[in-house]
């Protein structure tokens, strides 16, 4: 899922300073799974903001609303009334959702309450880890299921680099070295000779490097 973190409280407070009536949007999908912007987190942030503003002598009215998703028109179109009623929307959805709502309601500011970070998985309750950078040309079969683009800090295709130590990456002692993981897999499956193959250059044009991307399925267009 897309993983995000709530922005620091002081930043959020600054974003909504000019407003007396806002709607706080969440999302029932990715940001719920990573405990950043689901119904619970929306409630909590709304409560904090109300108390903060009361304390400052500038009370604020916050309407809480958590649509199923923020990235499909079906779920964003019905938000019209709530948004019309408010001066601004503060959104805990991911960057996609924040933008999409903004695209539908161009006359109201739609402000980010979170920093959207990565596409990842849940390792355990409360811990999420990055897995995919969306390079557009998946070679997970070649590296036995471990992505060198995302999990290697240098996106090496013929790693590891000289900084791999004790199975960890030089950038962060908590981060496993992707190439250690890949080599371990090769060993487990008796394929270590595959390691000698020189992986060719990556064509980055399928990634964001080629420009913002769009996908179309003509057979689905109405």
């Amino acid at each position, binding site marked *: 899922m897309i993983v995000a973190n709530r922005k620091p409280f002081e930043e959020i407070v600054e974003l909504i300073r000019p407003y007396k009536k806002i709607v706080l949007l969440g999302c029932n999908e990715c940001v719920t799974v990573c405990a950043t912007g689901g119904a619970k987190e929306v409630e909590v942030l709304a409560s904090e903001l109300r108390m903060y503003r009361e304390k400052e002598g500038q009370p604020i009215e916050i309407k809480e609303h958590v649509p199923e998703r923020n990235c499909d028109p079906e779920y964003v179109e019905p938000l019209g009334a709530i948004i019309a009623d408010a001066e601004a929307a503060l959104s805990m959805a991911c960057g996609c959702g924040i933008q999409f709502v903004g695209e539908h309601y161009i006359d109201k500011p739609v402000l980010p309450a979170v920093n959207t970070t990565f596409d990842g998985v849940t390792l355990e309750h409360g811990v999420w880890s990055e897995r995919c950078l969306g390079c557009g040309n998946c070679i997970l079969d070649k590296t036995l299921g471990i992505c060198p683009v995302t999990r290697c800090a*240098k996106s090496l295709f*013929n790693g590891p*680099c*000289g900084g791999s130590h004790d199975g960890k990456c*030089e950038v962060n002692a908590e981060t496993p070295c992707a190439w*250690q993981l890949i080599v371990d897999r090769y060993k487990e499956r008796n394929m270590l000779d595959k390691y000698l193959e020189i992986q060719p*250059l990556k064509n980055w044009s399928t990634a964001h490097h080629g420009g913002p991307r769009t996908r179309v399925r003509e057979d689905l267009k109405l």
Partner: protein
Amino acid sequence: MSASNLERVLRSGAFAVTSECGPPRGADGEVIKKKAGLLKGYVDAINITDNQTSVVRMSSAASCFILKGLGFDPVLQMVCRDRNRIALQSDILGAAAVGISNILCLSGDHQCFGDHAGAKNVFDIDSIQLVAAVKQLRDEGKFLGGEELKAARPDMFIGCAENPFGDPFEIRAMRLAKKAAAGAQFVQTQCIFNVPKFEKWMEMVRDIGVHEKMYILAGITPFKSIGMARYMQKSVPGMDVPEDQIERLKGVPKEKVAEEGIKIAIETIQRLRQVKGVAGVHIMAIEWEEKVPEIVEGAKLLPRP
């Protein structure tokens, strides 16, 4: 064979000596001249580092150009961290055009270690692909995109680095084999303090015949102080400093520590010369270039061929 002096020395079978200079953190070519001046007659080639540890310094290419003008044989170090394949190929052609004959292809330390941790990194291609790129430009006269060069091919002696102490240990020899297969002709290793572990790595390397496919230069760094030794042991990625060497430094009076560090370096060179497959040494005396002559002389490596 390229015009590289280093290549000439290695091919002749003589034990090669290279060293390195870190360029200044400013636009002053005099610093390079001074540092190199200390090494004249003691080394076969001089490496110039490329924004090492992601700390911004005067460019390796410009520094190599200055060295060339002074009659040295520079080794252009090139990392993949800061330049994409377009810039890398361009810089290779430029270096060759001004007479630089040696290139060392590296991944590059991550930018988090340096003074611009918020910078975007590149890593368009990796060090092995860079080795292959130089070889392709030189031998096939083709750019990575497939088009033919329209002017002279870059004539370069291609090198790479390897860390015998990096993990996973068991593939480190295979990794060197990959670099040789990609076209690397010489390798300079990370500095060696743990000689037994290095000997083990060399055994693995010899087992797959890599020592016959490329020239292996063993890295040496003298300890200037106990603090430096400790720092390298704890804070530098991929470094293996055995505790007994630090004990040795602690065992001498404070004013003799640097001297002891030099002694250790000389002894290490002498031990490494005995290891089959080691074709030379690469002395990295960081901010202590003035000691290189003493080390080269002490290890009985004079005169240079």
